[in-house]
């Protein structure tokens, strides 16, 4: 099934091809004669190709007269079918190889072919045979003939704003590989430019040699009169020439002249950088004649026509009517000005600025296009029966005169409108933007004086100079510092037992001495001496950070000496402790005076010890 479908497709394709070929065959038939070179030496050979374009089913063309040459062999017949963008072209070539037999300029006569009752003939080709032998060794190609450029305009004289076609052509001999093309366009100062179509590529025969041509075209519109110069255009490229090594040309070359044998026997590729420049062009630009210039003329030059349409036929007073005015033709479409509306009375219609749109319809040969103006008019009177007439004037450079196109008014019916209060519900952003404008400052003046009394206070007294504030600033710092120190002391008291005992030693001693005072007042000798003894021994134990049991006379004496306490104080302290213990346990408390003396002595001892140990 699939195979059948493929065959059907193939058959269909062939049918389409033949149908196209039939169409092609119906095209013009031409016979051309071309040579591979038109200047050669007696040792060279000349390839003459007679090509029938447009048909393949013809007889071979008649062999032309070849004075100065003999036929070596031929013809080699080749048939060619080209399909470019759907256009099919066919040709059939007959190539002969000729050998020059004499020197001088010879003309290869025209060849003829008969096809379907008509006779077609080729142009004669002039070939020169010179005696200058080509340099032996490597051949250097004649680059001037292989590649050249041309810059031209379609006219040498034009009116200001008239369309001129500038054409740049790059010729290179057919089959010559060209790469790295770099084109520098000519400077067209004082002209407006519009590109014309895409790059064109075609073949052209010059002096019997076929060239490939690349053509770039530009439409120019001169903006001033006088002699305007178009500077030269430049082109840089590289020619890639396949060169054979020096070998005698033999008839077998045609047999072994393919790429495989060339590569095998040594064929090299060489790049020749080529730079070509065209000449400059001087154009004479004429001013537009003053004679016969219509008052509606606004500078349009070209060939134009105009259409005016409107949809509205029946409107009320104040209702908008949109006139669509289309000006079309060839010329500078962008610069076409708005056509003029001819009104009997200016108050009959309210006019709004026209909005325009441009459409370029053809860029191939010349700039052709259309500019459409949407003109809004509002009829103000009920007696109006038609729209205003539309007039457009332009200068036709071909005719060399001004032309005016007038379009007749179009009938309308205007009814009286109701007096309505316009309610603006929404506004287009564009319209807002166009309607708004910048406000101009009329006069520059200073702002008025200030009269605010509520904030009227003496600002000359700087706050940072106020002594109260400066004093106030120190309070938080002092508080923070105090908190910091207290916190540190508190931490030490909880973490350092020795420090804590030392700090509380005096307090405890004073407390015990106070208890002793109470015992003295109550006449309790045993308790009195117990308090005194405990006050002294505990005080020393706390101060020296030793256990209470270790606070014996001997230990205390040693430790106090290590702390640098005077010996007399140590001795007195020991004596007191012994005395107090003795009186405590022997029921010999002594008199009130003795006890009072003992209390005073204990207080002095503690005071002296505090001074010594701090």
């Amino acid at each position, binding site marked *: 099934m699939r195979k059948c479908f493929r065959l059907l497709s193939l058959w269909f394709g062939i049918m389409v091809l033949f149908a196209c070929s039939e169409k092609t065959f119906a095209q013009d038939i031409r016979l051309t004669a071309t040579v591979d070179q038109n200047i050669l030496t007696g040792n060279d050979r000349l390839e003459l190709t007679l090509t029938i374009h447009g048909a393949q089913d013809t007889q071979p063309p008649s062999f032309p007269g070849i004075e100065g040459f003999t036929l070596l062999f031929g013809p080699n017949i080749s048939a060619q079918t080209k399909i470019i963008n759907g256009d099919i072209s066919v040709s059939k070539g007959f190539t002969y190889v000729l050998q020059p037999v004499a020197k001088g300029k010879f003309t290869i006569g025209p060849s003829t072919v008969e096809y379907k009752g008509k006779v077609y003939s080729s142009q004669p080709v002039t070939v020169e045979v010179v005696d200058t032998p080509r340099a032996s060794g490597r051949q250097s190609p004649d680059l001037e003939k292989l590649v050249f450029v041309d810059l031209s305009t379609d006219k040498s004289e034009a009116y200001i704003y008239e369309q001129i076609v500038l054409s740049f052509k790059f010729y290179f001999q057919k089959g010559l590989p060209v790469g790295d093309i770099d084109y520098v366009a000519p400077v067209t100062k004082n002209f407006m430019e519009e590109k014309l179509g895409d790059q064109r590529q075609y073949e052209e025969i010059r002096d019997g040699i076929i060239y490939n041509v690349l053509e770039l075209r530009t439409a120019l519109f001169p903006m001033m009169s006088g002699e305007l110069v178009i500077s030269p255009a430049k082109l840089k490229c590289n020619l890639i020439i396949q060169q054979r090594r020096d070998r005698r040309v033999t008839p077998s070359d045609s047999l072994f002249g393919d790429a495989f044998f060339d590569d095998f026997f040594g064929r090299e590729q060489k790049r020749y950088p080529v730079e070509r420049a065209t000449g400059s062009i001087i154009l004479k630009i004429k001013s537009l004649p003053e004679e016969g210039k219509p008052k509606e003329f606004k500078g349009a030059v070209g060939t134009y026509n105009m259409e005016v349409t409107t949809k509205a036929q029946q409107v009320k007073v104040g209702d908008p009517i949109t006139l669509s005015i289309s000006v079309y033709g060839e010329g500078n479409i962008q610069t076409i000005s708005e056509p003029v509306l001819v009104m009997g009375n200016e108050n009959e219609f309210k006019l709004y600025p026209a909005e325009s749109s441009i459409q370029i319809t053809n860029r191939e040969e010349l700039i052709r296009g259309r500019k459409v103006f949407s003109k809004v008019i509002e009829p103000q009177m009920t007696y109006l029966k038609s729209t205003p007439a539309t007039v457009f004037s332009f200068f036709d450079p071909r005719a060399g005169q001004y032309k005016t196109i007038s379009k007749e008014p179009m009938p309308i019916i205007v009814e009286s409108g109701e007096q309505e209060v316009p309610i603006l519900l929404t506004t287009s952003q564009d319209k807002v933007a166009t309607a708004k404008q910048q406000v101009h400052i009329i006069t*520059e*003046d*200073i*702002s*008025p*004086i*200030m*009269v*605010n*009394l509520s*904030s*009227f*206070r*003496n*600002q*000359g007294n*700087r*706050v*940072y100079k106020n002594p109260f*504030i400066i004093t106030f*600033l120190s309070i*938080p*710092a002092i*508080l*923070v510092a105090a*908190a*910091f120190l207290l*916190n540190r002391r508190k931490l030490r008291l909880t973490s350092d037992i020795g420090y804590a005992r030392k700090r509380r030693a005096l307090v405890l001693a004073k407390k015990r001495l106070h208890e002793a005072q109470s015992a003295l007042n109550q006449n309790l000798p045993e308790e009195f001496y117990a308090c005194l003894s405990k006050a002294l021994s505990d005080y020393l134990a706390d101060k020296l950070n030793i256990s209470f049991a270790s606070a014996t006379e001997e230990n205390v004496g040693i430790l106090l000496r290590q702390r640098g306490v005077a010996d007399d104080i140590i001795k007195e302290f020991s004596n007191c402790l012994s005395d107090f213990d003795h009186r405590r346990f022997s029921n010999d408390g002594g008199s009130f005076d003795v006890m009072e003396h003992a209390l005073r002595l204990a207080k002095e001892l503690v005071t002296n010890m505090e001074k010594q140990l701090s």
Partner: protein
Amino acid sequence: MKLRIFICLFPGVLFFCCGMRSADCGLPKSEVQDPKDRISRDAAIKLFTDANEEYLQATKFIASKKTQEADQHLKEAVLQYETILAGGFKNGQIYYNLGNTYYRQGELGKAIVNYQRAKRFMPRNADLDANLRLVKRSTEDREFTTEIPVVIRRIFFWYILLNQDELFIVAVSLYVVVMILFFFSIIRKYAWFKKATIGFSVVLFVIMISLGSKIYREQGVDRGVIIETKCEVRYGPGEEYEPKFEIHNGAECVIEDEKDDWYRVYVNVGIKQTPDSKEGAEEIVRNDVRRGWLQKKHVDVI
């Protein structure tokens, strides 16, 4: 950590103190002097209201093209505004209104001086800025100083928008907050106390630097404005020295030194170094070209 924060804050405090010292040393005479008979607020208000009334009367006369009467009222207004200021009562509004009055009298230099003084008290006032710009546009000499870029103004907004007192109040508030946070961070060991303390300390540091800088900029550097129609800047402090160039009413300058009746100034106006210099040559003029000596009577210190 706390010690470190204290150390960090120390340069800020030092900078602030230096700013204050500089301010005291270089304070314009008008601000340093303590008038013997200081004016009360009520008296100042009365004078201020009267002066405003005089000004408004003058404006009406100007509108009706009665220049003589207008000038008389303007002179009276100036006298009353100056009386308030001489009484030690300073307020941005007084300076602003005085600037307006001088502008109406055509005294552009004095108007600029008073607007600049007012700006120290009212840095955010748009009317003041507009008037100052307008008066500066009217002066003869082109100002050379460049404005602070908008980006910088936005970033350091507090420096531009707050006056000295307001910056000081912000600094004190932050100081109190930092101290409270310190206090509580000593008593209670919460982590966020520590972070908040660091954050507020950094802000306080920045504000202290800003305040010190502002005080130094406004009061540590003497700036003046030319109050004569035209005066010559000379090569030395005396009439015997050759004139260097001329500057005109309203041109601002920095006072660098003084000797007898002369100020050594650095002018902030464009100067053409040579008569045939091209346009824009003043931008590449050397700094020493801008310096010269001016008579004190030609300059009013801001």
